[in-house]
């Protein structure tokens, strides 16, 4: 492999026609017809079902596990912490939670495992087990953690802290005409993938482990299981089964669950063990979006010039480090928005509590910090007597401007154009005025409209991609078709179609001749996890480069000449594939001008950003205090759109999910665990509650490092809707700001009624 290779930005407007076509999803038909095989559909001659024995207490030592009467315990496979052959800790960024705890830190923490072939008996047995804990005091909120009560992590309950500074903040405050402070809070949110977490394991006592499962990151599972069984990673094979959604929820939890199933299998002498959660268990124990509390202090000139920003961003991490440090990092790196801010002091902390560990969820920290900033700017605009769109317009970053991280914008971006396109589509200016007039006359229904403008960085933060060093490959098959080999999974977001289009475009063959190999660690190279809006921009580029190499070799070794037809390629490919393995790989190389200083948190945090503006049009029913979104507009700039229907679907789905975040979804916790852990009581909006969503794409002059200049969009729509909706609700309520989501009717009622009372 050529290691001196450098990556060139893609500037060409010219892409083959298949880029930008609405290729149907290759896996679509089998999903619609029900022939797609999800983990629970896999059949084995015989198998055991596994279940988890969990802690009833949030903190303490396990004194005793009592196996009650009336159950034939000798028929059961039982795993206790002492039975673990290797290391009893989930390997992730650092060593995180134990697979089975002897000292617990949250309710629901696994302490033992049981398996049996009779599912009904297994469930009965689980209820006959009592876990006795010597309980110790626990903490459940960001406040308690920061107060330093019950230190359980490090010296101060803080898992991780970052600081970004630029300029001199004091100067901004002394120069300012307007200073505003605010505290913004967001609740936890559940991913609610349709297919619950589930894996199947076979752990041969001779030293081979195989996992089939609903997972986003097959190589993460491999990395976590090797030390658990004291095996080398190749001995652990992980095969992704069709995955019914993830949204980040299947990034890390499958590590723990796969470990559990594999431990039971190991203990059962290599019998196949199935562990598929039902909805209640899934909601009860799996990680959710981190709750947040952000304190913001801003400095502005009268004319709306942004002078300075102080941010204190705090996340509740729950009981173990898991992925919190990287969620925090992305959070703070999105906390300043697409604005020119000469002076900034941004501080971020994630704290320990005795709650179920929080984890990855689409947006990964950015939705929380963007919520705070964007809603804050709406308040600033109101206080300065400016339209919130106008305030933003006066401060947008342009090419040559610098973010507080020191990153200089090199793309020719035009955020005013982006915003104006959205405002026009939403009929914003007219509605904003008209609603204010109507609201004065109508006591029963109040309407409001507002916006948010934001970006999302594609790929791992900072030097993350360099450290990953991902690889993807393309090879010829005997029938003359071409197969893409990557570890990036299709879980609804369109990976298969996108890889197919890129490969077909480079090779000049019909998309039907491109296959995607199911991610299987024994076959595919490690192209990294399916997270961080990285699959199109980062891995797509690897596939593109591998395909280019393959093409060159086919031309050279197969004697094809430029301008070949698809049919000619296929015939040549058949010939070449018959001879030997014909495969080309590409490995990540960083763009030449991307540097990251991990110590100072300065530099190019991301090599590409996608940009967007959302406009939310809402109605609040003053009889019931219910807020509803009536219309939603989103304009997106993500470079080249590889597949417009899938891309628009991603944006629409993300917006629906985020309307849920803003108005409906309330993870109700007691002593750190979710207690409304049912579909009935965890309310996500259905199609009946979601308005018409108008999505459109615009393009800034192309210049980025993605394949055909395409950037990521997976997480982008999780960032902007919540603050736009909250600001629109505030507009409807006559600028009564509620700084905490979800904006449940009960919360709106409390605010409105309190005001009615003081008025009376």
């Amino acid at each position, binding site marked *: 492999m050529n290691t001196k290779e450098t990556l060139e930005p893609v500037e060409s407007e010219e892409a083959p026609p298949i880029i930008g076509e609405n290729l149907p999803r290759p896996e679509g038909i089998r999903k619609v017809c029900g022939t797609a095989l999800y983990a629970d559909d896999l059949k084995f001659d015989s198998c055991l079902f596994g279940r988890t024995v969990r802690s009833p207490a949030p903190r303490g030592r396990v004194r005793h596990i009592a196996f009650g009467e009336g159950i034939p315990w000798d028929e059961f496979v039982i795993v206790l912490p002492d039975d673990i052959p290797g290391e009893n800790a989930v390997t992730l960024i650092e060593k995180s939670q134990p697979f089975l705890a002897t000292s617990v830190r949250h309710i629901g923490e696994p302490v033992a495992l049981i398996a049996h072939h009779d599912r009904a008996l297994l469930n009965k047995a689980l209820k006959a087990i009592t876990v006795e804990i010597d309980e110790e005091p626990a903490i459940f909120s960001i406040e308690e953690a920061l107060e330093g009560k019950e230190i359980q992590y490090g010296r101060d309950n803080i898992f991780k802290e970052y600081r970004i500074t630029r300029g001199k903040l004091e100067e901004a405050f002394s120069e300012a005409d307007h200073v505003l402070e605010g505290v913004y809070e967001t609740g936890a949110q559940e991913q609610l993938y349709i297919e619950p977490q589930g894996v199947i394991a076979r752990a041969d006592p001779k030293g081979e482990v195989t996992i089939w499962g609903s997972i986003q990151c097959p190589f993460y599972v491999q990395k976590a299981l090797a030390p658990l069984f004291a095996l080398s990673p190749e001995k652990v094979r992980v095969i992704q089964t069709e995955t019914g959604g993830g949204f980040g929820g299947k990034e890390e939890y499958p590590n723990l669950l796969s470990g559990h199933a594999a431990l039971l299998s190991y203990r059962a002498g290599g019998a196949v063990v199935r562990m598929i959660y039902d909805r209640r268990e899934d909601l009860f124990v799996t990680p959710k979006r981190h709750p947040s509390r952000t304190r913001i202090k801003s400095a502005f000139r009268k004319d709306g010039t942004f002078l300075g920003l102080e941010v204190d961003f705090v996340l509740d991490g729950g009981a173990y480090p898991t992925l919190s440090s990287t969620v925090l990092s992305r959070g703070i790196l999105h906390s300043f928005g697409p604005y020119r801010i000469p002076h900034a002091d941004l501080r971020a902390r994630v704290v320990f509590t005795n709650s179920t560990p929080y984890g990855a969820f689409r947006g990964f920290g950015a939705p929380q910090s963007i919520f705070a900033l964007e809603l804050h700017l709406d308040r600033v605009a109101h206080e300065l007597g400016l339209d919130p769109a106008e305030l933003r317009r006066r401060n947008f970053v342009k090419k040559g401007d610098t973010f507080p991280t020191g990153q200089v914008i090199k793309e020719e971006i035009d955020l005013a154009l982006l915003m104006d396109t959205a405002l026009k589509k939403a009929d914003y200016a007219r509605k904003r005025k008209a609603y204010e007039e109507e609201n004065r006359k109508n006591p029963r229904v109040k309407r409001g409209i507002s916006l948010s403008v934001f970006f999302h960085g594609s790929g791992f933060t900072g030097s993350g991609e360099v450290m990953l060093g991902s690889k993807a490959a393309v090879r010829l098959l005997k029938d003359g078709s071409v197969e893409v080999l990557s570890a990036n999974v299709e879980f609804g977001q369109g990976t298969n179609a996108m890889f197919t289009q890129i490969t077909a475009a480079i090779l000049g063959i019909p998309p039907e001749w491109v296959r995607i190999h199911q991610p299987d660690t024994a076959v595919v190279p490690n192209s990294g996890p399916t997270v961080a809006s990285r699959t199109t921009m980062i891995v797509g580029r690897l596939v593109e480069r591998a395909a280019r190499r393959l093409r060159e070799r086919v031309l050279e070794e197969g004697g094809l000449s430029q301008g070949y037809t698809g049919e000619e390629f296929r015939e040549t490919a058949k010939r070449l594939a018959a001879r030997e393995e014909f495969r080309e790989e590409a490995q990540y190389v960083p763009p030449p001008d991307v540097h990251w200083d991990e110590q100072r948190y300065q530099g190019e945090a991301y090599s590409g950003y996608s940009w967007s503006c959302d406009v939310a049009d809402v109605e609040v029913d003053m009889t*019931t205090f219910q807020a509803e979104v009536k219309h939603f507009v989103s304009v997106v700039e993500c470079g080249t759109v590889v597949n417009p229907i899938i891309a628009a679907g991603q944006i629409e789905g993300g917006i629906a999910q985020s309307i849920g975040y803003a108005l409906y979804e309330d993870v109700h916790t007691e002593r750190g665990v979710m207690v409304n852990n049912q579909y009935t009581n965890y309310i996500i909006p259905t199609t009946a509650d979601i308005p018409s969503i108008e999505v459109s794409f615009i393009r800034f002059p192309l210049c980025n490092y993605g394949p055909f200049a395409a950037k990521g969009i997976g997480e982008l729509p999780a960032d902007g809707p919540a603050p736009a909706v909250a600001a629109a609700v505030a507009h409807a309520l006559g600028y009564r700001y509620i700084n905490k989501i979800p904006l449940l009717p009960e919360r709106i009622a409390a605010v409105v009624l309190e005001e009615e009372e003081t008025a009376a």
Partner: protein
Amino acid sequence: MPEASLLDFSVFNPRRLDEALSLLAEEENVVPLAGGTDLMVTLETGNLSPCRFLNLMGIAEFQEPFSWCDGKLRMSPLCSYRDTRIDKDVATRYPLLVRAAREVGVLAIQSRGTWAGNIVNASPAADGVPVLMVYDAEVELRSTSGTRTVPLCDFYRGYKEMDRASDELVTGIILPPPPEDRIEYFRKVAPRRLQAITKVLLTGYLLRSDDRIEDCRIVLGSVAPFTLRARETESILRGSVLDSETIKAARAALQGEISPIDDIRSTAMYRRNVAERLLDEFLLSASPESH
């Protein structure tokens, strides 16, 4: 003792009513099963003690959802929400049944769930019971020892407590014709539009001659241990002139009658306020000015 699992349940499938009644009288631990949309949820959550289901779906006498007799409507115990939604006569004469039926769960649940099941499940958040109460429904109960009818308004005694012996089946729901020219109201307040459990519900009708209220029904869901007919509020309204004074008095009376709680789905404060606002909305909509 470990809790129940699926192993602890079985099903009887009677074909005729008398067969069903004898099973109910003679066997132990028999639980009637209609659409199963409540029972299966309880089973799934592990909150149902071991029992034997008496499946009512095959009983010949129950197959016709509606019959009419002396101007009264008789609903079979298998009558589903969907049956109500698609019957033109029912929709014209008892529009509130359709209003409520449309907002129960979602189409799949409406096709399977029954009005009788909604009555016997006795949830304070039931959406079927309130409109039946507004129409003065009577519940027909039958056992091997005889048949009796109870006004639905008097059927409940406490949270999930009702005037039904364990060997009695609900064999019909009887609705007299409601008064002509009444003004009806129905509003279910739930956390989302469909597939949602009621936080507060208010339904009723009002019969006015000029500006005087001749008669009315006010029924609420989710503000008391069982579906509440607001008799005090009704009596304030009945005979009064429908003006702002009366509305104020009715709102105050309502506050005295309801006893909402804080739970996982909402707060007492919210329910209290919204119940009163719904009453206000109803009475204003029935006022002479708005017609």
